[in-house]
């Protein structure tokens, strides 16, 4: 972060007090204190622009997509496909055919594991992931390994919470059939150098899936620049509704993959003798999709673009730096995850206080954080702990809220003194 970037942000680019008015949920008291919502890595809050887009869809346009000739069906289809094009632009993909709507990142990873990896994996093959993964980017691969006899290999990590890439050349070998790696660690906030990692894998023609669930709320993503084969994310972590997310896949790969789920909308014609599958992206969207969710996701992308994702990222960096400095200065507080490049996540331990007690005490002061293993138990095992307390920031958080976090830590320490 350079001083010039900070200056731009601090002066005019973002007016946080104005932005907060877009988020009605933030304006409430919890346990007699103003809500301080610092659990954005678990799920983010929704701006009125997203809430109203979903509301308007149900009030005005609701019908099934790709079916009726009537006006509402046409409007619903336009809204749904319009949202797909917004996701395409958001990820920098070439074509709308490369954007598959899913329930979220988890479903997208399962789709790739079952449709792309499973048919080609054999006993002795390897699937490579990293130590920092969320369970959503571990378990689907364990399942496909169990189904095929392939082996799960893991890129190790070091104390700072960064990946240890010294052995990457050996881990990427002729047995490696796919690399699945997180862009940003949900438990620690580490931003992985995925462009370099992808380049190394591509040099050996190994396909790469990137789990971007924690990255898309905070970073500008360009899948063509990254040259990954698959990129997945969830809407609810980026100010959109729950139950909607997307899979980006390179068109040639998606074309070659068999459908994952069967049903309506993913077929061109069905008879009992023969069914012809629909073209991309519909081949992978069996059944009536979450149309309103897609509309909300499109509205969230518009909202982020209107503020400027670079501005959001710079402001969040500023918040994270400020929070990190303040916690570092506190006795009895240990920050877990000290990577050089981090995004919006501050995991920490208060000496002699279990994170679950921390979570309860914070909640009594209106401060919402996550306490637990963050669906990343291997990371916890690496540090020899069962859980951490995790504060995670969004662009609507303020420096005053960081002070509330610091005060909540002090209260906890006093109570446990």
């Amino acid at each position, binding site marked *: 972060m350079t001083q010039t970037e900070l200056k731009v942000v601090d002066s005019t680019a973002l007016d946080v007090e104005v932005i907060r008015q877009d988020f009605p949920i933030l304006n409430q008291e919890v346990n007699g204190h103003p809500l301080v919502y610092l659990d954005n890595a678990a799920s983010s809050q929704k701006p009125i622009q997203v809430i109203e887009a979903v509301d308007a869809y149900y009030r005005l346009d609701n019908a099934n997509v790709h079916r009726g000739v009537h006006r509402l069906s046409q409007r619903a289809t336009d809204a749904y496909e319009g949202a797909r094009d917004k996701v395409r632009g958001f990820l920098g993909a070439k074509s709308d055919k490369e954007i598959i709507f899913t329930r979220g990142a988890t479903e997208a990873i399962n789709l790739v594991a079952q449709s792309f990896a499973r048919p080609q994996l054999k006993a002795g093959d390897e699937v490579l992931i990293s130590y920092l993964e969320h369970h959503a980017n571990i378990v689907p691969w364990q399942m496909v390994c169990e189904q095929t006899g392939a082996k799960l290999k893991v890129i190790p990590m070091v104390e700072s919470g960064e990946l240890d890439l010294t052995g990457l050349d050996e881990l990427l070998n002729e047995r490696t059939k796919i690399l699945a790696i997180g862009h940003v660690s949900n438990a620690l906030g580490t931003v992985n150098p995925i462009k370099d990692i992808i380049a190394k894998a591509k040099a050996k023609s190994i396909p790469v899936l990137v789990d971007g669930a924690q990255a898309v709320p905070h970073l500008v993503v360009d899948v063509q620049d990254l040259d990954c084969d698959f990129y997945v994310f969830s809407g609810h972590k980026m100010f959109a509704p729950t139950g909607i997310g997307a899979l980006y896949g390179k068109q040639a790969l998606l074309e070659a993959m068999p459908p994952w789920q069967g049903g309506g909308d993913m077929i061109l014609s069905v008879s009992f003798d023969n069914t012809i599958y629909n073209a991309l992206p519909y081949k992978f969207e069996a059944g009536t999709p979450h149309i309103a969710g897609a509309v909300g996701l499109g509205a969230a992308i518009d909202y982020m673009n209107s503020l400027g994702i670079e501005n959001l990222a710079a402001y969040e960096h500023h918040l994270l730096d400020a929070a990190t400095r303040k916690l570092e200065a506190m006795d009895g507080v240990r920050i877990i995850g000290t990577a050089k490049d981090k995004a919006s996540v501050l995991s920490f331990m208060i000496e002699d206080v279990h994170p679950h007690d921390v979570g309860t005490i914070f909640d009594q002061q209106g401060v919402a954080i996550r306490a637990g293993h963050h669906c990343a138990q291997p990371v916890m095992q690496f540090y020899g702990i069962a859980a951490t307390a995790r504060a995670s920031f969004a662009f609507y958080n303020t420096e005053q809220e960081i002070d509330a976090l610091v005060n909540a830590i002090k209260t906890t320490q006093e*109570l*446990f003194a």
Partner: protein
Amino acid sequence: MSDLRDLYQQVIMDHKKNPRNFREIVDANHMAHGNNPLCGDALVVYVKLNDGVIEDVSFQGSGCAISVASASLMTETLKGKTLEEAEKLYDNVHNALTGESENAELAGKLQVLGGVKEFPARVKCATLSWHTVHAAMDNDHDISVSTE
């Protein structure tokens, strides 16, 4: 803050800092592992039963203040009790903390756990050791229980 003081009473904090019977019983004839997968709390409960009486009971493991203090209190409460008395205490704790019985009041020194009722997300922390000891007494081999 007053609710917090109810939850983290001095007795709770004392048991958290100095858990009683925090050791292995080498000649235990019953034991069980208890896990709360949500928060990662994990403990082992050892029981030495002699002719229907709990001659010794202990625990080891790690967890939050509530789960450690509750386990510590549990061992103090159960030592010397018959299986029948232990069963009644287990029912009492379960009913009082999960609200299954409206009139249930915690017995004796277990009353300090009452503050947990105001914190539904934490009830499982307080009941973990009781579920674990219950499983231990019911089985003569090592068994795992989970509060999820």
